[in-house]
């Protein structure tokens, strides 16, 4: 057998091995019910529930943020993130979390905010300087 064939086989073998091992790093998108069922780390997409309290008091602890999230099934649960509160948190229209359920609370390890595109939702700003 030619060496190039050996290399090709080795490459394919390694590729399959890597793919199998890399698939361990994958997770699926889930809602609260599915996350509770799985018990494992999942990705979750939802919206901030604006009429429930957002708890962040840096005087007490600058690394503790708690809020309520509505998942795509409509269920509302408390979410805890041990990090500072991002500046534009309240403006977010969608939140993507990674984390897992602990009891009734979803403990997130990271959070990505989708804020309304600055130029789509904004209205024409009326100049007030001209009097």
């Amino acid at each position: 057998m030619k060496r190039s064939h050996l290399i090709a086989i080795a490459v394919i073998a390694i590729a399959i091995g890597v793919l199998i091992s890399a698939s361990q790093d994958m997770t699926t998108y889930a809602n609260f019910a599915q996350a509770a069922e799985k018990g494992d780390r999942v990705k979750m997409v939802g919206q901030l529930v604006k009429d429930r309290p957002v708890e962040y008091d840096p005087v007490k602890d600058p690394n503790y943020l708690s809020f309520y999230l509505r998942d795509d099934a409509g269920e509302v649960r408390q979410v805890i993130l041990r990090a500072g509160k991002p500046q534009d948190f309240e403006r977010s229209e969608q939140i993507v979390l990674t984390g897992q359920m602990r009891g009734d609370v979803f403990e997130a390890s990271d959070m990505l905010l989708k804020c309304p595109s600055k130029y789509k939702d904004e209205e024409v700003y009326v100049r007030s300087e001209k009097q």
Partner: protein
Amino acid sequence: MQYIGEHLLPGQIGHLLTVLSFVAALLAAVSYFLAVRRRASSEEAGWLLLGRGAFVVHGLATLGVIGSLFLILVNKYYEYQYAWANVSDDLPFQYTFSAFWKEQQGSFLLWSFWHIVLGLILLLRAGRWEAPVLAVLSLVEVFIGSMILGLYIGEYRLGASAFDLLRHTMDAPIFERADYLSQITGNGLNPLLQNYWMTIHPPTLFLGFASTLVPFAYAVAGLWMDEHRGWLKPALPWALFSAAILGLGILMGGAWAYVALSFGGYWAWDPVENTSLVPWITLVAGIHAHLIARNTGYSIRSAYAFYLMTFVLVLYSTYLTRSGILGDSSAHAFTEMGLGAQLIAFIGVFAVLSIVLMAMRSKSIPAPQQEESIASREFWMFIGVLVLLFSAVLITGATSLPVWNKLVQLFKPDYVGAALKDPVAHHNRYQLWIGVFVGLLTGVAQWLRYQERNAALWRRTFGKHMLIALAGATALTALNALWLDVFAWQHFALLFAAMFAVVANADYLISFARKNLKQAGSALSHVGFGVLLLGILSTGLNKRWISSNSFAMEGLIEGMGSDELNKNVLLLKDAPMPIRDYEATYLKDTIERQTRTFAVRFRKRDAQGNFTGEEFVLHPNVMYDRQFSQVVASNPSTKHYLTYDIFTHVSSLPKAELDPEFARQQEDSIRFEAYEAAIGDTIFTKKHYLVLDDYTKAPQHPDYRPEKGDLAFGLKMRAFALGDTVGHAAAPMLYLRPKQGAFTLPAQIGPLQMRVRLTEASLARLLDADESLQYRSLRLKEGETADFEGYRIQLVRLNRNVEHPHYAPESGDIAVAAELRITAPNGTTAEAAPVFLIRDNRSLNLKDEVAKWGLHFRFENIDPSTATMTILAAKASDQVRRIPLEIAENAPRSDYIVLEAIVFPGINLVWLGSLLMLFGLGLSAWNRWTQRRRLEA
């Protein structure tokens, strides 16, 4: 309706030129295509000439489009959506460039601009490769041109024009007014983009993207003309140049993220970063295959494949960032513009073209019959190329999960989709091994020779230098382990590979390459790669949050023990806070335009907690939007040392500082209680006592900007906690501004959660005081003394240099101050200087007072004949002397910041390593280019 004040001409010209540019590109592509098809026939010259002409017209038209758009932005023509959305009257001129390429259209134009520049160089220099290369380049320009056409074909809109009018893109009642333009102003540029990185990073990155087209076009030309060796030589400097510039563009992105954004790092494995890194990796793989092909004739097929792949990956990256598909997995992408289908067509055409060409020519691409020797450089270089391919495939695969999810959802709508649990950990885990293999291979392959036929003879030299490299790498690994917290064997492997690359290549550089500049490029690049790996290791493993104070935070939160979670620390104003290795103090904040800058002092402490004497002040800032209603950006501030950086940014602020609505509610919820006090009095509240020391007409307050005509009053007080002797200064004030009204500025005493303010009642008392006074006149000559209510009042002298808080000199004034010295019954003295003033033949006087005793003085008259002055004196009753004020004792603190501070050791190794790598590539490109020129000459 006839709108007033619109400038429609630049838009019409711009639009016309966009169409012209598109048509000219199409004509250039067709002409060049036919020039290739009719080559060696009599028609060739004609088609070539037409192609050139069309390409030049395309270039000029595109420059015209850029000029029109720039004109619109510079002149702030808000009738255009592009200007309205991206600039504003107060935007400094230098950010016009940032605004220009912030949106899709502008960045397409930038990309196109570089293609034209490169195309013109090729037009002049590419010789017999001109026609096929420019045919490909022009075809790409056709696709890019179509993205900004904005033409409707039936219902379908082809491209998004940069010249759309605001009133066409938006439905708002304001456009029913003919003078709507005088009512609107631009949105301005996102403050995050208002920095010089946004001016230099996109042009560099787009030059990098654009330059990948040149090796691609050469590769297509080689396949098309069936000349598989001829293109290798002219394409090589272009490929090297492209790798250097694209690398520089990516590096600038990392540097921007690090120094100006609050990412807390230079690389985040963000999809946008990944999709620009992957083409760079495949380009570098292509260069190595190319070098093998040039030197040995092997790997021509691979060189083709990698260059074709690189450009298609650039297009794929364009698709990912511009189609909106990354949506929830990337923090930064362009605004979606409905170009998805066009972008897919763009990728599709060039991907299919590449595959078809490769398939058609698969038989005719030459390759040596004999296999390469296992002791040859080309063999190990090719293994390295495969490792790079692995890297590219892994990154692309993981980054493409959102695309894959969308694809599956087309067929299975209920598919929930997969995502990476932790992208950063995932990429680091796999790319680490790429680093290990590439590091080792660069060292080994550098010391092997192309087409080795005499392995036995070379074995000794090779063995000797490998021993040097092994020994050097072992020693350096051990040395580095002294300062690096290496704890996993994988990290040792990477560290060793990095050091191996550094030593072996440095050795090569010293032994050979210094004589031969051509080789210096590659050895330098490889040394740089090793240094970069070391930098990645040191910043990655030893990145340390110093903004934590586990003692002060302990027990506040259940289950919170791990230091890693304590990344933020709360700093109260003026209260030194011990954090790891330092003491941090939030000193002050200042506001300029929309930026609020904080000064935070760091004082280094040694292991015993003593100060080492080293201290510095950092200035992180936050930017508010134009209405000051929210914080839109938090910008870091970094202290640079040679061996490490200290990176800080404000991660949070009191809610009252972020949200004016909340601040109002909070203000309303504070319970103020009314008190009255005269100067010298002490006020006892429930938990505190305050001493009213003085009263001033020239008060100072952080929020007060004096203006001419203001009438201002302020108190000087000290506040104490009951049983405490440490006083906190408090200076509430109020001022009357003509035509605007009265404003009160409270004093916040943060540590006591106290707030003191003056009210309208205070103002009334201060203003009305005079009316209730019973003045008595004293007639005094200079030096004389009179008695008044037990006080001795002496007229010390008259002074014509008048200084009085309410006196602003005018020409023609005659002003004299009477300097009085007042001695109280107990022997203490005070001074006052009322002023007598004649202005416009009217006599006026400006009073002065000794607030602590309630004494008021006016200088009413001068009798020149007797040199006697008339001074009016009055003593206010206790009732009048008492100033009403309000005190709250439940005021929430808002004088703090939440700070994140990170130490990045070895960050300079990252920059040094990357720059060496890119410098090496650039050097090689330069050498190959000039060498070619010399050969041609």
